[in-house]
């Protein structure tokens, strides 16, 4: 079910109908042939003569002082090339810079633990040997003596008097705290007929699992002092900004090379501690070295998604079901080190009101460290937690006040004719039609027959529940939002780069500033280029992967934050427009006419209306590159064009915490039907629909792939995936046995729908849409609440928790009539 909504009048597009040009077509993905034939090149495929393999010695303690590290026995083992300890790291590097203001700014983070360990699995030392297995064996010979300290595993205790302090230098566990206050919350309470109070909600810790674990092969060039990292870092520009100052070198001494990456959902952004350790080892040992993360280590100590507590939620509501706002105290648990944080303390504000029109919002936000794995921007970063809160509020209010969850949504959604819509904190929702998406999602699961299905389930002894998840994927960051957290940070706006050239044989060659990880950048970039130059995507060679030495890139280059369709393709479009202009200009010189008389079509530059007067692209390439004598001196044509796309952002108002934080807002409305066995708590998702609106879809099949993947990760997070710690700080779910990622067979029958509300702010009308899985987490929670009749207060609800829910009280919620 697909529609295009182009305000003001919706136009229905039939599935499969050819569109004009290549954009919108499901052309075969350029990447698939090599990937399906096993010819993709991942970092671990790259080997060097006499290279060494790294294994990290990790802390068994969640919190302890390091009394001594003895590597002597490991060094005696034949085949061991060398080791690295925290003491060496402390001498050879500076701590990574912190983004926060004090006390978070005072926290010290190194490549290996220095003096203290702060989470189970933290790297304490590293050993390099001739084989991966030998390095692992040698690691067992490294003796570390610890003095255990009391661990802090509950973020709610982090500010208690006497709570263990992780970072003595900071003197506090607080990374950042602040209050966000928009509208007039007290006025809203005064205006309300009822106020709903919810004591506590909890968004669980989980992480979107990539197929490929992290790693790198590092070579050090002693002559130039430069490191080359064949790796899977998904945001090398930012990685270099962290690493170079720590290593006390310039940015250009760090070369990141990627080709294929087996998924990266934010968990390959904060790899800099490992990479710095590898760089030190490559230099120390004068040998290429490779680190390939073990899966258990990926689970234990790479990067989790942020865990968040929401306390003392208050929601003023009018008698007619109009929601006026909400107030909440949020405690975010970022684990042992801030790293990318405290950016999560503002990223949620991109979607402050969720899909709703409420205008009076107060959020008291505190982020703290705990003795758990550090976090990084997990798919849906920070918005997912906040949108889960807004959706929980809607369904809890509906339950308590006896409102219909569908109607209360439709009443409070931002309306189609209100776009572009300015949120209470100054973000501009570009376009959308949430109510229409919901109607499609309802239709897909046969909502009109819900009661009939409920009775049928009942007759089989099952409890049937229905739930909705309405979320937004805010894409294309304005990095200026970081200044709201720390005015000293000189980051704002965004940019991305592409180059497009026409070579001597008429080949069109594109390089990207982005770092693809499976999103099909080569394909979609070729579609955009082909439409502008009047050729086939097959004629466009988009270089795979990224090499910071040879691909043109900018400060914010990378693949993250739902933005390639805007920034990446915006840069491709800009560069190709420039090249098209140059090709017309060159052809006009050859033909002696105006550039305006030249059209580019069918792989040729020709005079409009005169197909006989045509120059193949090959001729244009050859003339400029190899046969250019006699061309006019002032002919300003290189056929090698670089374009930097800059979204139209302003710096936010730091005092008011106000401004446009992202450029686009894709919509996801999911509906879910579950059947619960009341005896055991076991449940099954028996019907599921995902409706997506990401504006103009460049390649609908790739969009659907993203929707499927994001939904699978959301359903995993909603049903089983939880990083659970015991009181000692041991991770109890460090492997696929205990941390169950959905298999194909776990996935429900999924129905998809889409509409296209083109963004008025982007070069192609497209929006970023890679991180829209959050709707699924909530849809399951809402369906479980409907089925059990009990308040669902956690984002992850495995069977045992549903059983507990069935046997629990009503839940801590209170309604005050005014």
């Amino acid at each position, binding site marked *: 079910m697909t529609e295009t909504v182009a305000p003001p009048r919706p136009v229905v597009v039939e599935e499969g109908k050819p569109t004009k040009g290549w954009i919108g077509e499901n052309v075969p993905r350029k990447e698939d042939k090599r990937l399906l034939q096993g010819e993709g090149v991942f970092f671990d495929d790259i080997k060097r003569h006499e290279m060494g393999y790294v294994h990290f010695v990790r802390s*068994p*303690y969640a919190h302890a002082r390091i009394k001594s590290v003895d590597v002597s026995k490991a060094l005696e083992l034949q085949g061991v090339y060398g080791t690295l300890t925290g003491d060496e790291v402390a001498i050879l590097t500076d701590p990574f810079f912190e983004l926060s203001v004090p006390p978070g700014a005072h926290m010290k983070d190194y490549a290996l633990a220095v003096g203290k360990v702060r989470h*189970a699995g933290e790297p304490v030392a590293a050993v390099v040997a001739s084989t991966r297995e030998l390095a692992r064996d040698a690691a067992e010979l490294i003796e570390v003596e610890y003095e255990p300290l009391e661990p802090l595993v509950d973020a709610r205790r982090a500010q208690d008097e006497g709570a263990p302090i992780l970072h003595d230098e900071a003197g506090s566990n607080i990374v950042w705290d602040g209050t966000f206050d928009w509208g007039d919350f007290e006025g809203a309470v005064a205006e309300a007929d009822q106020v709903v109070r919810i004591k506590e909600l909890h968004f669980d810790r989980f992480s979107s699992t990539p197929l490929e674990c992290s790693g790198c092969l590092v070579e050090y060039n002693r002559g130039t002092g430069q490191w080359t990292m064949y790796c899977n870092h998904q945001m090398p520009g930012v990685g270099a900004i962290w690493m170079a100052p720590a290593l006390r070198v310039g940015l250009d001494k760090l070369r990141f090379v990627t080709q294929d990456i087996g998924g990266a959902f934010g968990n390959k952004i904060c790899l800099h501690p490992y990479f710095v350790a590898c760089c030190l080892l490559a230099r120390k040992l004068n040998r290429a070295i490779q680190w390939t993360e073990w899966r*258990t280590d990926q689970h234990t100590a790479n990067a989790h998604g942020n865990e968040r507590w929401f306390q003392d939620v208050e929601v003023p509501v009018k008698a007619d079901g109009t929601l006026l706002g909400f107030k909440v105290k949020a405690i975010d648990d970022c684990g042992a080190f801030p790293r990318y944080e405290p950016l999560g303390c503002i990223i949620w504000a991109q979607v402050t009101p969720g899909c709703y029109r409420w205008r009076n919002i107060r959020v008291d936000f505190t982020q703290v460290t705990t003795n758990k794995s550090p976090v990084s921007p997990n798919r849906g970063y920070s918005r997912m937690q906040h949108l889960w809160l807004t959706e929980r509020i809607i369904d809890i209010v509906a339950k308590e006040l006896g409102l219909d969850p569908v109607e209360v949504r439709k009443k409070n959604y931002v309306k189609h004719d209100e776009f572009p819509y300015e949120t209470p904190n100054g973000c501009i929702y570009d376009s959308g039609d949430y109510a229409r998406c919901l109607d499609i999602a309802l239709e897909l699961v046969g909502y009109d027959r819900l009661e009939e299905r409920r009775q049928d389930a009942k007759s089989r002894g099952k409890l049937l529940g229905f739930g909705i998840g309405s979320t937004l994927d805010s894409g294309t960051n304005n990095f200026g939002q970081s200044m709201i957290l720390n005015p000293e940070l000189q980051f704002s706006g965004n940019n991305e780069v592409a180059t497009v050239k026409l070579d001597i044989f008429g080949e069109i060659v594109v390089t990207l500033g982005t770092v693809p990880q499976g999103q099909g950048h080569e394909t979609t970039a070729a579609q955009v280029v082909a439409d502008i130059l009047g050729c086939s995507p097959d004629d466009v060679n988009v270089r795979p992967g990224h090499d910071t030495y040879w691909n043109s890139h900018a400060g914010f280059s990378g693949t993250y934050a739902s933005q390639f369709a805007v920034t990446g393709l915006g840069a491709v479009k800009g560069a190709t427009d420039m090249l098209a202009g140059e090709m017309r200009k060159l052809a006009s010189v050859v033909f002696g006419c105006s550039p305006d008389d030249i059209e580019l079509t069918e792989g040729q530059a020709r005079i409009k209306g005169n197909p006989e007067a045509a120059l193949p692209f090959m001729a244009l390439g050859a003339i400029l590159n190899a046969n250019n004598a006699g061309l006019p001196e002032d002919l300003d044509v290189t056929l090698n064009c670089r374009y930097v796309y800059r979204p139209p952002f302003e710096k936010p108002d730091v005092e008011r915490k106000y401004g446009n934080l992202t450029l686009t807002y894709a919509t996801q409305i999911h509906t879910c039907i579950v059947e619960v066995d009341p005896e055991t708590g076991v449940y099954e998702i028996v019907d599921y629909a995902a409706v997506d609106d990401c504006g103009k879809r460049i390649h609908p099949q790739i969009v659907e792939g993203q929707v499927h993947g994001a939904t699978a990760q959301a359903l995993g997070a909603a049903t089983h995936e939880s990083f659970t710690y015991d009181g*000692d700080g041991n991770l*109890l*779910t460090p492997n696929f046995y*205990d941390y169950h990622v959905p298999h194909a067979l776990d996935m429900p029958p999924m129905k998809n729908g889409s509409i296209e509300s083109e963004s008025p702010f982007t070069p192609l009308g497209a929006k970023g849409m890679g991180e829209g899985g959050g709707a699924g987490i909530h849809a399951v929670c809402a369906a479980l609440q409907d089925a059990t009749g009990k308040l669902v207060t956690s984002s992850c609800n495995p069977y045992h928790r549903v059983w507990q829910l069935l046997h629990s009280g009503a839940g801590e919620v209170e309604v005050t009539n005014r």
Partner: protein
Amino acid sequence: MKVEGEREFRAPRATVWEVLNDPSRMAKAMPGVESFDVQDDKHWRAHVKIPLGLGGLRMSVDFEKTEQREPEFAKLHAKGNGVGAIMNMDTSFHLSEAGSGTHMKWEAEVHVLGPVASMGQRVLQPIVNQQVSSVLNALDQQVQEASALSHPN
């Protein structure tokens, strides 16, 4: 993880006390002990192999007797180090006379850290139960032997 239990021995309290406080006899009661060194009457060290997965988990365990009230109570602290695991255990026992035999009430608080702990109680609990059962049976055997030596007929 806390484990506790009770046990009856068909031997006088003094005999049971003697066995429980004799490191060499206790070494025989513990499964998987590969070597045992007595440092003094309050400290001893055992190298044990716990049957966990392929090949077992080798651990060096230091014992320290931290409290004793002969013939009824003793408390021990044990700290074990192995590849992938650190174990801390505080254990104590109370002995009381039960007719001609002895009643023992014991408890142990076991903390396991590291990847082994991460396997969760699903794996660890059955192993601990198995170990405890094995220790108690072996202890019974040691008490019987000691009793036979003290009272040959």
